[in-house]
């Protein structure tokens, strides 16, 4: 009996991990009058927990605006948004099995993921960059040859470092934090000479540190990645609805104002500004909306 329960649990897990649930999200919204939004606990200014079970950030607000538009077009009296925290490990399975209907976090749009999920048009273009201590005398990536470089387990930056090593014949001594806060701690305590991560996460970490002037982001950009709101695959009507809502905000300049609200002005809970102006790549994505994966972005 015990064995059997376990087998069933394992089966359920595998089904949850690979199965696809309702493909018509608009119908689900109409029926239930609610939607489950996947959010991140700590993804810089894009999506984060503000405390008291509240979530905020650039992508969270974009989703809230888009869902308000969808509520109007479906003529629903009310649309309840349920916030569900997800991690980089579980966001795709939870989207596929219907636990969340729309993921408003910091997910890179790449070809591997497009086999499993769909992405709304790119709303933010991330630049992977390097932060060092201001007094370290390090100005370029090449100077980090043989030195300790921190990054966070479970992110694309780990693979990116590997690519740079093989292509450039350099060798980093990699150390891995289990989350961004710990990776930054490795830099702060001198266990690492540099921290390689998405630019906005670096900017947010610096702004929250004890002494922001003690850190410097290098000019070199290691990679450029389109970040987008993630949706279920094969649900074109929902993707269209989301893209339309985003397009209207891109055109009116509202999107740019929301960006400044989360990245340029002081944000809760600490009321410190991240201070990261929209990059030219991000602005390009707003003027020519597309959902191309990172592989195609690089080829341009």
């Amino acid at each position, binding site marked *: 009996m015990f064995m059997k329960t376990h087998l069933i649990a394992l*089966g359920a897990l*595998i*089904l949850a*991990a*690979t*199965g696809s649930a309702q493909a018509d999200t608009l119908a689900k919204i109409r029926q239930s009058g609610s939607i489950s939004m996947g959010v991140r606990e700590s993804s810089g200014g894009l999506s984060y927990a503000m405390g008291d079970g509240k979530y905020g950030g650039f992508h969270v607000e974009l989703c809230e605006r888009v869902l308000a538009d969808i509520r109007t077009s479906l003529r629903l009296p009310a649309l309840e948004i349920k916030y569900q925290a997800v991690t*980089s*490990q579980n966001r*795709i*399975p939870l989207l596929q099995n219907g636990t969340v209907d729309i993921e408003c976090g910091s997910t890179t749009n790449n070809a*591997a*993921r497009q*086999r*499993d999920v769909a992405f709304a048009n790119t709303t933010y273009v991330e630049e992977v960059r390097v932060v060092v201590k201001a007094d370290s005398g390090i100005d370029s990536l090449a100077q980090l040859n043989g030195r300790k470089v921190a990054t966070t*387990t*479970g*992110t*694309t930056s*780990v*693979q990116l470092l*590997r*690519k740079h090593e*093989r292509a450039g014949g350099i060798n980093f001594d*990699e*150390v*891995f*934090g*289990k989350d961004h806060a*710990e990776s930054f*701690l490795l830099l702060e*305590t*001198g*266990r690492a000479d540099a921290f390689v991560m998405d630019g906005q996460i670096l900017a947010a970490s610096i702004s929250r540190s004890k002494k922001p002037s003690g850190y410097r982001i290098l000019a070199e950009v290691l990679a450029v990645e389109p970040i987008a709101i993630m949706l279920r695959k094969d649900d074109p009507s929902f993707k269209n609805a989301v893209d339309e809502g985003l397009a209207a905000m891109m055109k009116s300049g509202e999107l740019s104002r929301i960006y400044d609200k989360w990245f340029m002005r002081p944000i809760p809970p600490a009321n410190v500004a991240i201070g990261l102006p929209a990059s030219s790549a991000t602005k390009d994505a707003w003027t020519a909306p597309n959902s191309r994966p990172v592989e195609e972005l690089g080829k341009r």
Partner: protein
Amino acid sequence: MSWGWVLASWDWLVFCNDTVSGERVSGCIGPIGEVTYFEWMLSAWGWTLSVALSALVVALVAGSLVGIARTTSNRWWVGFGGGWTELFRNIPLLVQIFLWYHVVPALFPALKAVPSFVLVVIALGFFTSARISEQVRAGIQSLPRGQRYAGSALGFTPSQTYRYVLLPMAFRIVIPPLTSESMNIIKNSSVAFAVSIPELTMFAMQAQEETARGVEIYLAVTGLYFLSAFAVNRVAAMVERRVRLPGTAGTK
């Protein structure tokens, strides 16, 4: 959706992909300078076994010494052993790992140069030693008091009494719980990912992110953990059989 569909959606050949380009490497082993996920997983397995087995040595040595200290007649040793055991078993393992990695080097800057592998081995070893000391103490105390007296009556010093009379029996008695601890240490070594040891759990977290093939990766890693712990179990069972004495517990 049927089971057939689930099985068909698996792609076990993902392990043959190159870890940089993501392209399939024929034969699953990349040429020099290239590494496949399969090779990476084997190296991660090696790290898991290295951490676990090194920590097991630390745990057995420290745990036995502390356990013995707690059964001596010297109250300072008894107090030291009790303090050690309570300190290391009342703090969560992950917290202990962070204490060794972040806090202790901040207090003693010389420790910053110590590799994280050593710190993890110490942390995991000391954590487990607290549990082993408890078992060794119980094993020694389960022996009839007459055994200790018999040692004294023969003119043995206390250390000779332990060496020739008490410990040979006590260790035979506690082989089963020590087996569990040895298997636990394999599984507990997974916390080493938190301090940058590239072991199996870290491989799983990172590789599933890169390949988007979480189910295959986690199933393979689960299998390797099971295999490692089960191998420890079999070795311990063999040891138990080899050292068994006629007329004592466990014999027919």
